[in-house]
């Protein structure tokens, strides 16, 4: 039974793209782990601070800086999914996307495969971050509520940012006339730009406002990524996916 599930998972197109992406470039895993570790550290420093200061709204005001971990986790997610974007360009240039089209797929089907791979990676990352946050909180005998809140926010923002970044970069790569390697820094810059409010707001806004801003940002970016996905699947002609 377990072997069957593992075999089925191994055949999943999203999982295969993840594996192929990391075979192409695995150094991004290291960067993502470093950034996530810093995010976990910041979250738990905030949690410890929460424990040390007597209750009340001031506590939340004081700990809003620890919500920097949300933006950091989203950036780590962006880094982790960069190999998927690289693979898309690589597959386009080597005729793999052309072969996918010849099997009856359309643009949307192909985008969905790479997007799914990105989402799988983000889910794995945010789950690991959430487990680590709770584990560290328990080890330090702290409250698990704040680490869980921070993890949930990070999950929402990471998923929306990576979805938008992946779709935008696939559309951009499809429209490029020349084979260029500029997608990698551009994708990272786009991801960093999207999470900018999550970096800025914790410095001068109270905790609850930062939470609202992060959530609103996640919702807006998610809506944008859905719109962009639907538009690009319809507006970008199949020929744009050819080598």
């Amino acid at each position, binding site marked *: 039974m377990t072997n069957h599930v593992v075999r089925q998972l191994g055949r999943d197109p999203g999982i295969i793209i993840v594996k192929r992406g990391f075979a192409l470039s695995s150094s991004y895993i290291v960067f993502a782990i470093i950034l996530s570790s810093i995010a976990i550290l910041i979250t738990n420093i905030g949690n410890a601070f929460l424990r040390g200061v007597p209750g009340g709204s001031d506590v939340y005001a004081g700990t809003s800086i620890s919500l920097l971990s949300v933006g950091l986790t989203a950036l780590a997610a962006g880094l982790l999914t960069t190999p998927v974007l690289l693979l898309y360009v690589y597959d386009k240039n080597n005729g793999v996307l052309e072969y996918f089209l*010849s099997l*009856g797929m359309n643009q949307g089907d192909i985008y969905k495969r790479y997007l799914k791979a990105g989402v799988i990676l983000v889910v794995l990352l945010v789950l690991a971050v959430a487990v680590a946050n709770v584990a560290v909180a328990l080890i330090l005998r702290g409250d698990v509520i704040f680490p869980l809140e921070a993890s949930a926010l990070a999950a929402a923002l990471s998923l929306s940012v990576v979805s938008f970044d992946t779709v935008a970069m696939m559309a951009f790569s499809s429209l490029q006339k020349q084979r260029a390697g500029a997608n990698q820094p551009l994708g990272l810059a786009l991801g960093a730009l999207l999470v900018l409010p999550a970096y800025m707001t914790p410095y001068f806004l109270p905790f609850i406002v930062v939470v609202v801003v992060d959530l609103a940002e996640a919702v807006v970016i998610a809506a944008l990524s859905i719109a962009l996905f639907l538009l690009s699947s319809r507006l970008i002609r199949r020929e744009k996916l050819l080598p």
Partner: protein
Amino acid sequence: MHTLELRNVNAGYNKETVLRDVNLTIQEPSIYVVLGPNGAGKTTLFRTIAGILEPYSGDVLFDGENVTSSRDVRKRINYLSHHNAIPEEMTVYNALTFYANMQGGSAEEVLALLHLEELRDKKVSDLSQGQKKRVSVAKVFLRERDLYLMDEPTSNLDPGYSKEIRDILLQLSKDRIVLYSTHNLYEASDIGTDLILIKDGTIALTEQISNIKLKEYRVGIKATTDISQIVDAERGEQGYYVMTVSSPEEAGHILKTLIEHGVLVTEMRQLENPLQELFENTRPVKA
């Protein structure tokens, strides 16, 4: 029996038209050789028939269904691009399994069919160009389809493997339409029954290859003695005595004459391919 029909098809890239008003109907199962110089539009024709390129205008129909809009019809077409399209970071077996999972078929079976077992666990990036081409061709045979579009399937392959692939296609062509592009004119006349000649994005000629005749033939003869004293031949390239005849029958008479004079003829061959003249005529003339 299947029918492929192109009606007033205009197609290209980035709004630049490559194929112009292409009309074509194919009904008989056979191998149709698509011939034309580089840039004539052969690959664009294949991509349009495969539904990969959406035509700017006109229709591509397979068994009456529109290829561009019907995903089900596209799934009945097999297209081999001149790009290998094999993930380089995978092993040969994993790459073929990757495609088999997407379209059906068995990696084991195509490995056996094309005698690729010895490459099974090798990484695609470690293969030679010819080996990559064989793996690329193998993916097309993972699952049988109703229409085969083979864009230069034997380029980079040695004669043995080329023949192996041609034999498989000949077998498939008994009840299917196979479109086959090549620059090798001898291969074209060897495998194909029909010719589709493309020039400047239009179909310049469709004809049965057996009907294509030349006005005159250059024949090369290798013999153990000087035959220029017996027939009107000149010493030519690669040790051949070269002569021009008006028909294959005349060549037979010459051979008979030489034998009657006690000449041992070791080789006699046609020096030009009947398709050569057609091909030369389709090449753009330099200004």
